């Protein structure tokens, strides 16, 4: 039979380190049912019959946070064979508070005092035998970081599971014990004796969740209530406070007899660091520097190199191991011959001539810069053409070591076996592109997760919340929301995953819903396209996109925190600032890998399926009444775009091209530009800002409707990769759906207001549109200024 040992303890007590030390690589990571709280389980090293369950880090078994409720439910209903309670020896007083509660559950408990090396170094002495005696359970000293004593602790827990019972030695004051005895007798006599005490104390505390679970009859409750009331009168406090007070009084007496602190009042190393890091004046500049480093490493440098390599190399044509700069030079030098060849062949075709024999033909070739301005004019003659044609086009494979990308390798393989065109397209444009969309983000994400794991485990992340709390809580967000938003300016996928560091469920959900409003790097080409095509590259277009994003976050935060969905959970109001310490490489790397892998697994499926679906819609359609592969212009997607286009008439772009581009943008936002390239001019490839199609776009869009299109695409549902990340982090289909619907609805409302009010102020407004726009503005203003009272009781239910 498998022995189950539950690992319980405060956050920052070294629980993760102990769990890793005990189980090694033998871990299973999932979620507790229905919630985003992580559930880890592993087998004890060298013992296949001993399971270690890592419970969430908690301070108490109160019914007010999700983590606490999960832990309580697990301990009282699943009843593991023993509890291994890890306790931070440098912070014994508060850590033992949870211990006093765990020993009442009627389960064998072993207390492992962690950081014992640090306690000794400080010159403090903990009397282990005395503590063990007074707590009524075995106490062992360990150092999880150094690995000393951890397996002895596990052995003790196995022993305890097999042989011992833990009977709490602590007794409350007379009046309380009297009431508890009455409660046990009146309501719990049918329950096993060793479980009665915990339930009796919870009933005494009027714990709503326990009362609901036990379904006591009304007269038992009124009978019990009398006992509680009389205890409350005698002690002049409410029942919950009486219990908490007495626990801490008891712990104070334990500390007095078992703990000898050498020096008090001297500053520790951690205090000294904090004097600088959270200093009134230095805190914000230091915060800015740390954030810049995170951004610089994960978004601009290492992260971008990794993503570019994954997207353009591994899942693109291929990449250079060496010699890429030499190839770049050669490719630039080839631009002129290429332009000459193109211009000559095009004009020959127009004249109905074969370019090889069109000796008398004269034409002009143009070289363009990044904005489509003519950089150079070249008069082309037949002679020039033959010279240019003789120039060898540089082949990347000739420069340094060129490694073929996966699609190229697969394409060559498929061509070699004469694969059918549609199957080849499915494999390359559907599946490989889909897998690439998933995996392309992983390298960058790993870089970010590495940095986050470091910031979290060294203790700086708690300081981020401390420093930024004031600003972010107004919008229903946490101080820690800053990091996801910052990362989202690069890519929303790691941004959403970075929300993992926010403990409070409400703040985390709010962050996930709003963080994609920030323009990510893939939206920059859309901004460049609209700015170039419609606004003559006006300087204000790009900054305005960021303002739209920030306003969307602020408005949404304030509106959503007043809704029922978000009001149901309490805000964090007290938070520990743990002592700084240097994290181990193993813990940081493990945390990085766990998060990366969970993205690949959970988010990957949805991204892959969605990419294949859009590929199908975009490549198939009816041509001359037969179904088959067609150009995008005739595809099912175009039909679908035409069908839903009327929806977008009120926001200014009821043309099917816009609708189709918005849909292909779901695969990756930069696809909007590529799709416009196909739909507005038949270019299979356009520049990043799409200058080739600017003129054609001006025929269909007005500046106002184009800006409305931009606003919609910035704010609406993000790309599939980000949707997958949302699904992964919400761990709940309903919440994912809510997030996407809210984003689309908000995007539509914002574009409508922009377009209709724009029409009105330019003198072309229509009554219905303007009224709707004003109604939306009014509704938002009403939600913004509606009075609001923070709810402070956890109402969400957690399945047992």
């Amino acid at each position: 039979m498998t022995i189950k040992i539950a690992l319980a303890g405060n956050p920052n007590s070294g629980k993760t380190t102990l769990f890793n030390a005990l189980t090694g690589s033998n871990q299973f990571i999932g979620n507790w049912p229905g919630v985003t709280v992580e559930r880890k389980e592993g087998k004890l090293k060298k013992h296949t019959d001993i399971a270690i369950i890592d419970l969430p880090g908690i301070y108490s078994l109160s019914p007010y946070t999700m983590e606490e409720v999960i832990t309580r439910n697990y301990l009282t209903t699943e009843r593991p064979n023993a509890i291994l309670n890890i306790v931070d020896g440098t912070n014994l007083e508060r850590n033992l508070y949870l211990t006093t509660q765990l020993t009442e559950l009627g389960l064998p408990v072993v207390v492992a005092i962690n950081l014992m090396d640090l306690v000794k170094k400080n010159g403090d002495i903990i009397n282990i035998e005395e503590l063990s005696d007074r707590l009524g359970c075995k106490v062992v000293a360990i150092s999880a970081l150094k690995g000393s004593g951890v397996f002895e602790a596990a052995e003790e827990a196995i022993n305890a599971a097999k042989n011992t019972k833990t009977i709490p030695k602590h007794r409350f004051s007379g009046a309380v014990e009297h009431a508890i005895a009455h409660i046990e007798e009146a309501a719990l006599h049918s329950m096993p004796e060793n479980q009665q005490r915990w339930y009796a104390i919870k009933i005494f505390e009027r714990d709503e969740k326990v009362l609901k679970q036990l379904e006591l009859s009304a007269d038992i409750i009124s009978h019990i209530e009398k006992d509680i009331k009389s205890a409350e009168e005698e002690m002049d406090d409410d029942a919950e406070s009486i219990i908490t007070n007495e626990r801490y009084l008891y712990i104070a007496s334990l500390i007095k007899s078992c703990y000898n602190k050498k020096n008090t009042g001297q500053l520790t190393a951690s205090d000294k660091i904090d004097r600088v890091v959270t200093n009134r004046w230095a805190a914000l500049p230091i915060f800015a520097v740390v954030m810049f480093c995170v951004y610089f490493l994960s978004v601009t440098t290492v992260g971008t190199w990794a993503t570019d390599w994954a997207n353009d190399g591994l899942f693109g044509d291929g990449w250079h191991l060496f010699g890429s700069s030499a190839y770049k030079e050669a490719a630039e030098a080839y631009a002129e011959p290429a332009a000459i060849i193109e211009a000559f062949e095009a004009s020959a075709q127009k004249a109905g001539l074969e370019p090889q024999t069109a000796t008398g033909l004269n034409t002009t070739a143009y070289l363009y810069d990044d904005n489509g301005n003519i950089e150079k004019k070249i008069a082309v003659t037949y002679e020039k053409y033959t010279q240019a044609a003789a120039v060898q086009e540089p082949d990347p494979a000739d420069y340094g070591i060129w490694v073929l990308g996966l699609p190229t390798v697969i394409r060559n393989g498929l061509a070699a076996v004469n694969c059918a065109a549609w199957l080849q397209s499915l494999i390359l444009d559907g599946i490989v592109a889909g897998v690439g969309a998933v995996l392309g983000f992983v390298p960058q994400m790993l870089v970010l997760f590495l940095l986050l794991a470091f910031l979290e485990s060294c203790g700086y992340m708690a300081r981020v919340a401390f420093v930024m709390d004031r600003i972010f809580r107004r919008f229903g967000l946490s101080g820690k929301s800053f990091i996801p938003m910052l990362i989202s300016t690069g890519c929303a996928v790691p941004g959403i995953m970075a929300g993992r560091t926010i403990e409070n469920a409400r703040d985390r959900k709010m962050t996930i819903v709003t963080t994609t409003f920030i323009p990510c790097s893939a939206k920059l080409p859309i901004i460049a396209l609209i700015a170039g095509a419609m606004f003559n590259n006006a300087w204000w277009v790009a900054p305005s996109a960021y303002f739209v994003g920030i306003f969307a976050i602020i408005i949404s935060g304030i509106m959503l925190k007043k809704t029922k969905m978000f009001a149901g959970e309490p805000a964090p109001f007290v938070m520990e600032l743990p002592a700084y310490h240097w994290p181990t490489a193993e813990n940081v790397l493990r945390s990085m890998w766990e998060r990366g892998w969970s993205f690949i697994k959970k988010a990957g499926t949805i991204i892959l399926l969605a990419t294949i679906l859009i590929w199908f819609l975009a490549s198939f359609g009816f041509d001359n009444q037969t179904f088959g592969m067609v150009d995008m212009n005739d595809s099912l997607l175009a039909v679908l775009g035409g069908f839903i286009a009327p929806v977008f008439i009120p926001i200014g772009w009821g043309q099917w091209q816009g609708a189709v581009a918005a849909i292909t943008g779901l695969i990756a936002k930069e696809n909007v530009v590529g799709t416009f390239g196909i739909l507005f001019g038949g270019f299979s490839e356009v520049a990043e800002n799409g200058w080739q199609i600017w003129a054609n776009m001006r025929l269909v869009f007005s500046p106002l409707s184009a800006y409305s299109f931009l606003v919609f695409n910035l704010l609406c549902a993000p790309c599939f990769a980000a949707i997958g990340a949302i699904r992964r982090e919400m761990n709940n289909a309903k919440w994912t759906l809510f997030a996407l619907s809210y984003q689309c609805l908000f995007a539509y409302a914002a574009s409508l207001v922009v377009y209709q009010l724009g029409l009105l102020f330019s003198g072309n407004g229509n009554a219905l549109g303007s009224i709707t726009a004003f109604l939306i503005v009014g509704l938002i203003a009403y939600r913004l200024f509606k009075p609001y009272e923070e709810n402070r009781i956890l109402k969400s239910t957690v399945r047992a």
Partner: protein
Amino acid sequence: MNTLKQAKVGERLRVVKLHGQGAVKRRIMDMGITKGTELQIRKLAPLGDPIEVNVRGYELSIRKEDAQMIEVEKN
């Protein structure tokens, strides 16, 4: 009534009574701020809120809004 909200940085205080009820009060008590507990105000966050308090040998961050529920006296 003197509350933790009005306390100055560096002050050493003793908790007289906890006001309020429900989750907030319980959470504050769970973290070790109970009747008679000694507190030392370490610092204010750069933007003036929250407060950092030393309690039972560790550092705790608490918002002013919640700190006003904690009645204190000079130690």
